[in-house]
C-alpha cells in the first residue's frame, strides 16, 4: 500500500489536496441547487477521508515532520505556506477527516433550511481545522485558527437552538479574546527572533530553534499562548462557553466542537506552548497551577455533569473532565502520559462525538434534550439503547474500549510525576460511572411511562451508518491500540527530550518524584 501511494507521489501532494479539496467542494455546493447540497458535501467529505487514509500507511514512525510542503507566501515578512504532519498531529488529521463525513451524514435530516451555506461552511470548516493541525508556520497557523472560528460561529448562530445568538457570540468572543493575545505573542516572538538572527520568519522550526532569545519575555509569552489554548481546551474556569455552545449548536456542530475544536487547545500546548517555553511550563508555580486546574476540571466537570438535567449539557461538562486528563498527561511529561494524552484526544473525539450524535438523534425524535423527558427507551428502541450503552461505557473508560487505553496511560504515566494529583484524578473514573450510568438509566431503563415515547422509531440505516465507524473505532482502539501508539511514540519522545534539554535543570529537579518508601 505504502509503495503504491509513494508511486503516485502521495507524500508530496496529500496535504495540499486535503486543504484545497473542501474549499473547492464548498464552491461547488454553493453553485449547485440546494437539493444536491448534502449529497455533494458528503461526497467531498468521503473523498477527503479516503485521500487522508493513505497517511496511515505512508506515515513512518519517526519523530520527523512528514509530507512537508513549503512554498513562499509573503516573502517580505517571512511568511511561508509550510505544512507537515508528525505523530502528534497525524491522528488529529485522521480524526477530522473521519468525523466530517459522519457529521454531514448526521445533519441529513436535522438541517432543513439554508442547506447550501450550511454544507459549504462545513467544508470550509474542514479546511480550517486541518490547517490548524498541519501548519508549520505560525502566521499560517494563526490564519487557519481564525478561519475555523468563523464557520463555527455561523453554524451555531444560524442553525442553532433558541439561545443560539448568545451562545455563538459567547463562543466567538471568548475564543477570539484568547487568540488575540496569542497573536500578539506570536508577533513578539517573530520580532525578537528576527532581530537576534537577522532572519525574519514565522517558520515553526526557526522560531523554536531560536526561542532562547525570547527568554526575558518568556513568562508573558507563555501566558498569552496558554490563555488562548486553555480557553479552547477548555480548562476550568474558562469552560463556561462550552455548555452554552454545545447546547445551542446543531448536532453536527456539537460533534465537531467537542470532537475536534477542543483538541486545538491541547494540540496548541503540545505543539507550541510547552516546547517553546519549557522553563515556564516546568516552573513549579506554573506546574502547580496547571495540574491543579486539570485535576479540578476532572472532578468538577464530572460532578457538575452528574446533576445536569439536559443531556447535551451533561456531555459538555463531561468533556471538561476528559480534557482535564489530557492536560494532566501533557504536564506529567512522561512517555506514557503524553502518548496517553494524545490517545485521549483521539478517543474523546470518537466517544463524545458519538454521544452528541446520539443526543441529536433523540432530539430529532422528541425535540427535547431533557433527560427527564425519556425513560424506558430500551423497550422501544433496542438498537439505540445498545449503541448508547456501548458509547457510554467507552466514555467512562471501560477496559476493552478505547477510553480505557488513554486514561490508563495518562494515569500510569502521570503517577511518577504527580502522585497525589493522579490519585485524585483516578477518582474521576468513579464519578464518570456515576453520571453516565445514572443518565442512561433515566433515558433507557425504568418504565416507559411517557406516551410520546411509545412509538419512537429505532435507529435508521443512515443513523447506523453514522454510528458504525465510531463503534468500530471504540473496539479497535480498545483492543489493539499498539499500531497507533507506535506511530505516536517517536513524536512524544522527541517532545519530552526537547523540553528536558532546554529546560533549566534547576527547575526540573523540583518536579516531584514519588517519595513513598
Amino acid at each position: 500500500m505504502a509503495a503504491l501511494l509513494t508511486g503516485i507521489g502521495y507524500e508530496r501532494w496529500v496535504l495540499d489536496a486535503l486543504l484545497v479539496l473542501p474549499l473547492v467542494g464548498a464552491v461547488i455546493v454553493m453553485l449547485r441547487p440546494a437539493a444536491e447540497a448534502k449529497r455533494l458535501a458528503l461526497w467531498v467529505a468521503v473523498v477527503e477521508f479516503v485521500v487522508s487514509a493513505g497517511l496511515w500507511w505512508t506515515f513512518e514512525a519517526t519523530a520527523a515532520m512528514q509530507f512537508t510542503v513549503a512554498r513562499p507566501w509573503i516573502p517580505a515578512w517571512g511568511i511561508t505556506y509550510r505544512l507537515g504532519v508528525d505523530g502528534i498531529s497525524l491522528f488529529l488529521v485522521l480524526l477530522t477527516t473521519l468525523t466530517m463525513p459522519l457529521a454531514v451524514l448526521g445533519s441529513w435530516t436535522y438541517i432543513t433550511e439554508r442547506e447550501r451555506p450550511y454544507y459549504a461552511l462545513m467544508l470550509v470548516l474542514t479546511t480550517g481545522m486541518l490547517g490548524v493541525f498541519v501548519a508549520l508556520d505560525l502566521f499560517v497557523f494563526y490564519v487557519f485558527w481564525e478561519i475555523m472560528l468563523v464557520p463555527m460561529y455561523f453554524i451555531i448562530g444560524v442553525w442553532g437552538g433558541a439561545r443560539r445568538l448568545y451562545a455563538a457570540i459567547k463562543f466567538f468572543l471568548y475564543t477570539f479574546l484568547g487568540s488575540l493575545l496569542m497573536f500578539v505573542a506570536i508577533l513578539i516572538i517573530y520580532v525578537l527572533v528576527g532581530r537576534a538572527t537577522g532572519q525574519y520568519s514565522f517558520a515553526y522550526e526557526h522560531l523554536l530553534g531560536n526561542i532562547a532569545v525570547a527568554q526575558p519575555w518568556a513568562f508573558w509569552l507563555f501566558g498569552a499562548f496558554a490563555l488562548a489554548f486553555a480557553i479552547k481546551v477548555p480548562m476550568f474556569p474558562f469552560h463556561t462557553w462550552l455548555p452554552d455552545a454545545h447546547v445551542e449548536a446543531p448536532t453536527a456542530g456539537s460533534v465537531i466542537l467537542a470532537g475536534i475544536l477542543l483538541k486545538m487547545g491541547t494540540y496548541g500546548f503540545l505543539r507550541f506552548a510547552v516546547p517553546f517555553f519549557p522553563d515556564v511550563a516546568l516552573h513549579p508555580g506554573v506546574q502547580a497551577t496547571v495540574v491543579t486546574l486539570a485535576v479540578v476540571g476532572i472532578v468538577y466537570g464530572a460532578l457538575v455533569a452528574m446533576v445536569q438535567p439536559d443531556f447535551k449539557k451533561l456531555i459538555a461538562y463531561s468533556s471538561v473532565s476528559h480534557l482535564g486528563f489530557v492536560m494532566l498527561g501533557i504536564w506529567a511529561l512522561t512517555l506514557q502520559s503524553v502518548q496517553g494524552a494524545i490517545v485521549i484526544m483521539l478517543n474523546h473525539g470518537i466517544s463524545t462525538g458519538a454521544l452528541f450524535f446520539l443526543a441529536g438523534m433523540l432530539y430529532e425524535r422528541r425535540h427535547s434534550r431533557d433527560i427527564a423527558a425519556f425513560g424506558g427507551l430500551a423497550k422501544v428502541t433496542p438498537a439505540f439503547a445498545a449503541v448508547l450503552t456501548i458509547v457510554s461505557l467507552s466514555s467512562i473508560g471501560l477496559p476493552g474500549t478505547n477510553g480505557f487505553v488513554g486514561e490508563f496511560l495518562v494515569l500510569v504515566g502521570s503517577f511518577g510525576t504527580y502522585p497525589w494529583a493522579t490519585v485524585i484524578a483516578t477518582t474521576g473514573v468513579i464519578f464518570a460511572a456515576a453520571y453516565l450510568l445514572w443518565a442512561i438509566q433515566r433515558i433507557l431503563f425504568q418504565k416507559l411511562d411517557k406516551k410520546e415515547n411509545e412509538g419512537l422509531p429505532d435507529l435508521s440505516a443512515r443513523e447506523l451508518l453514522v454510528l458504525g465507524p465510531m463503534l468500530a473505532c471504540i473496539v479497535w482502539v480498545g483492543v489493539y491500540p499498539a499500531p497507533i501508539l507506535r506511530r505516536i511514540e517517536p513524536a512524544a519522545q522527541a517532545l519530552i527530550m526537547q523540553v528536558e534539554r532546554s529546560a533549566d535543570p534547576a527547575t526540573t529537579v523540583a518536579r516531584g518524584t514519588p517519595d513513598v518508601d
Partner: protein
Amino acid sequence: MMPEVPASVSLVWLVVLLPLLGFLANGTLSFARPTATRAVSAVGAGVLVAAFVVAVAVAVGVARGAPEEPYVVTYWSWMPAGELSVDLAFQVDQLSTVMLLVVTGVGALIHLFSIGYMGADPGYARYFSYLNLFVFFMLLLVLGASFPVMFVGWEGVGLCSYLLIGFWFEDKVNADAGKKAFIMNRIGDAGFLVAMFLIFQATGSLSFQEVFRQAPATFEVGGTTITLITLALFLGCTGKSAQIPLYTWLPDAMAGPTPVSALIHAATMVTAGVYLVARTNVLFALAPVSSLVVAAVGAVTALFAATIALKQWDIKRILAYSTVSQLGYMFLGVGVGAWTSGIFHLATHAFFKALLFLGSGSVIHALHHAYHATHRHEDAQDVRNMGGLQRHMPWTAALMWVATLAIAGVPPFSGFFSKDEILSRAFTRGHEAPVFYVLWAIGVAAAVLTAFYMTRMMLYTFHGPNRTGDKEREHLHEAPWIMTGPLVVLGVGAVAGGVLNLPHILPAAGWLDMWLEPVTETGALFLPELHLEAGTEWRLLLGATVVAALGIGTAWRLLDPAALRPAAEAPAELGFARVLARKYYVDEIYDALIVRPFVWLSDRVLWKAADAFVIDGVGVNGAAQVARFAGWVGTRLQTGHVGTYVGLFVLGTLALLRVLTR
C-alpha cells in the same frame, strides 16, 4: 525461564473465544430473531459445555507438564508505551487451572439450568448473550498474565453484573441495584488502578511474572510501598468480593435473575478478590500489615453478614448475606497466608452456594407459577410464604439440605473441610500473635450463626405447614429435569468436594496444597513455618463439628415453622431484630453521609453557585457587560458583523507587522 507450552495448554485461547462467540451470536439473535429460543439455548449453553471440555484438556496438560513456572501464551502487544509493555497474554498455571475448571464447569451447569428457568422470558436471547459475555470476561480475569489484562476481566465482569442485575430494567429497583453495583465496584477499581500505578513505579512492569520475580528484592518486608500496593489492591477486592465497607451492593444484586445470582454473585465473580490475593500472594506475604487487614476485614465481615442473615425473610437475601459471610472466610484464609485454603473454600463454596441459589431458584420458580396461575400478587421469594415445600419438591429439598449441611460445616461434607482448614490455619498463627486467636474466635462465632441461619431458612422453606395459599398449593410442583439435573451434579460436588484437600491427619491428604505449591511457594518463604500437632488438629476438627451441631440444633429447637404467618400478615420486627432486619441501617447511613451530600454539593454548590453564578454570571457575563458599556468593541461585535471585524483585525495586524519589521 518460561517453560515451553504443551499443545493442549495452548488451546486455552479456545476456552476464552467460545463464550465470546456465544455472546456475538446470541447478541445478534436478540435483535434479529429474539424468538429463536432453541438456537439461543444451543449456542448459549453449548459454548459453555464446549469450553469446559477444552478447559479439562488444558488442565490435563498442566497436570502432565507440572510446570514450576506458569505457562505464558502471548497473543499481541496491547499497550506498548516506552518502558511500559502490556501484552495480551494468558498465564496458565495450577491456580488459573482451578479457576478455569470452576468457572467453565459450574458455569456450564448454570447455563443449562437457565434454559429451564429463563425459557419463557421475552429477553431470552439477550439474557444468554450477557451470560456468555460474563464468562468471557471472567476467563480473561482468571487467565490474564498481567495486572491490566486481569483488570479488563475485572471490570468486564462488573459490566455484565450490572447488565444482568438490571436485566428486568423496567423496574426502577432493578436498574438502581445494577447501577449501585457498578459504582461501588468502581470505587474498589480505583484502588486496583492506584495499585497498578505504584507497582509500575516500583518495578517498571505490570506483568505478573516480572513483578513477582522482582518483588522480594525490590520491596522490603513491611515497607510503605508494598503495604500501600497491597492495601490498594485489597480495596479493589472489597468492591468486587463484597467485603466491608463495600458490600452493600451484593444483597441488592439479588434483583437479577436467580441463575445470575448463582453464577456471578456466588460462585465466580465475587470470588475474584480472593483469587487476586492468592495470585499476588508474594506481594501480600511481603506486607504483613496488609495481610492482617485482609484477615481482619474477612473475619469481621463473616460475622457481621451472618448476623444480618439471621433476620432476613427473602430467601435470596439470606443467601446473599451468607455469600458475603463466606467470602469473609475466604479472605480470612488468604489473609493469614493460607492461600490454598482460601481457594479450597472458594471451590467448595462454588458448589454448595451455586446449589443453594439454583435450588432457591427452583423454589421461586414454583411459587411464581403458583401465584401466576391464581393471579395473586404475593412475594415469591419470602420464606414466610413458603413452608412444607419438601412435599411438593422433594428433589430440590433434599439437594438443598445437602448444600446446607455443607455450608454449616457438618462432616464429611465439603464445607466442613474447607472452613475448618481456614479456621485451623488462623488458630495456628495465634502462637505468633494473639490477634489471630481473636480472628479465629470470630470465625467460630460466625460458623455457629451460619449453621443457625441456614437451618432457619431450610425449616421455614421446606418444613412445617405450607403458607403459600390454599388454591396456590395445587400448583406447586418440582422443577423440570433441565433444572434439577444440574442441581444433582452440584450436589455431588457439595458432598465430596472435601477430598480436594483433606486434613493432614487423614489419608490422601493435602492434594490441593501440593497442586498449588508452585504458585504459593514464593509467598510461603516469607511466612513463619506453621506446624499443627495432630492432637490439636483432631481437637479443632471435633470442635468444628460441635459448632455446626450447636447451630443446627439450636435453630431446630428454637424455631417453630408452624408459628410463622404469611408475609402479608406478619407482625413488624421489634428491638434489635428490627436493626438486623434493616441491615444495621448501613444503606441509609451511606445515603445520608455520602450519596446525598455529593449530589447536593454538585447541584447547589458546584453547578448553581460556582459555575452558573460566580464563573459565568459574575465573571464572564459581568466582563461582557463591562465591555458593552465600554462601547465600541462590544457593540460592534454584538451586532454580528464578525466577518468585517476579522477583516479589519487582520489588516490592522498586517500594518503593525509592517511597522515592526521595518
